[in-house]
């Protein structure tokens, strides 16, 4: 079947498809790659610039965060770069996988996203409710403080917190819906491919 002496008419017909114009393709590929790298470098330069600015502001005492902010920012950049590099390597590995393993890796990624989405829409409100409960329990035992002075500020904080919570829940629900559909579809495809013929 593989090396049949007579050429298959389908193969012969398929091979006659017109050849694409490749004259500029290599240069386009190189240009796109360069643009992509330039964008990455620009983003990194901006993030590093902000880090330098933070360090400067903290060193001159204009920002009273005692170096915590700049350290956190720098750590976030380093972590981000490391994760980006890892993701690039993973993507490159995934390209050369066979189809079954590619589907498996896609299912694993979708399941991970589904878990994160569930954390967003179920975990976050539960955590918030638990936190509120704990704070109420703790504050019930202690003497009333001067919080009444900042009642407006508290109201704004509560409002912002609730808004953030709602956004997280809605985002989580949307993400979970799409990811669960993706997991289901991919699993069906994988089942179909792995089916014993």
């Amino acid at each position, binding site marked *: *079947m*593989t*090396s049949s002496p007579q050429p*298959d*008419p*389908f*193969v*012969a*017909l*398929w*091979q*006659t*498809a*017109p*050849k*694409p114009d*490749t004259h500029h*393709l*290599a*240069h*386009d*590929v*190189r240009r*796109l*790659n360069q643009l992509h790298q330039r964008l990455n470098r620009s983003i990194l330069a901006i993030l590093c610039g902000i880090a330098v600015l933070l360090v400067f502001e903290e060193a001159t005492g204009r920002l009273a965060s005692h170096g915590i902010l700049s350290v956190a920012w720098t750590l976030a950049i380093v972590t981000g770069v490391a994760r980006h590099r890892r993701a690039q390597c993973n993507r*490159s590995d*995934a*390209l*050369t*996988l*066979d*189809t*079954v*393993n*590619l*589907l498996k890796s*896609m299912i694993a990624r979708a399941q991970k996203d589904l878990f994160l989405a569930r954390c967003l829409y179920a975990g976050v409100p539960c955590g918030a409710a638990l936190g509120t409960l704990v704070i109420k329990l703790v504050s019930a035992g202690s003497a009333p403080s001067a919080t009444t002075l900042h009642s407006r500020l508290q109201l704004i904080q509560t409002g912002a917190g609730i808004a953030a919570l709602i956004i997280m829940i809605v985002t989580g629900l949307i993400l979970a819906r799409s990811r669960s559909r*993706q997991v289901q*579809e*991919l699993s069906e*495809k994988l089942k*179909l*491919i*792995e*089916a*014993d*013929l």
Partner: protein
Amino acid sequence: MSNIAELEQIIEVHAAMVRRIASAYERHPDRVDDLAQDVWIAVWQALPRLNDQTMLKSYIARITQNICVTHVRRALVRQTQPLTDTLPDRALPIDEASAHAAQLTRLIEAVRNLPDNLKAVVILYLEEMPIKEIAQALGIGESNASVRLHRAKSALRLSLGDPS
């Protein structure tokens, strides 16, 4: 792989294959071009990992297949114009060339309409890859690949008749 001349050479040899595979997954010619460009960027990045240069064709075919599979998963179901960029072969007379182009378009359409598990096998077969390499690229057994290929060819014959 930083040498652009080397990439140009590889593109020159395998561009037609990449485009044929992409056009079996995507109808819209512009999106086929975009897919091909994505493939070549990925090939450029992934090429240093290739140890055996004799496997270059199946390596590129596998990358193309994976990118197309990922593209199809992401894309919404689109009802667009059928592939219209299959130009007639200049070596053939006009009538014969247009008949040939129509037959080729029908073949591409028939391949595109195959179920995914058959489509993947038949595309690699049409790219003249041996059954062993097809099985490796898809992560299935050789006998499994053979059965699928047989089914895919039967389905093609059913919808096209015998092209010879």
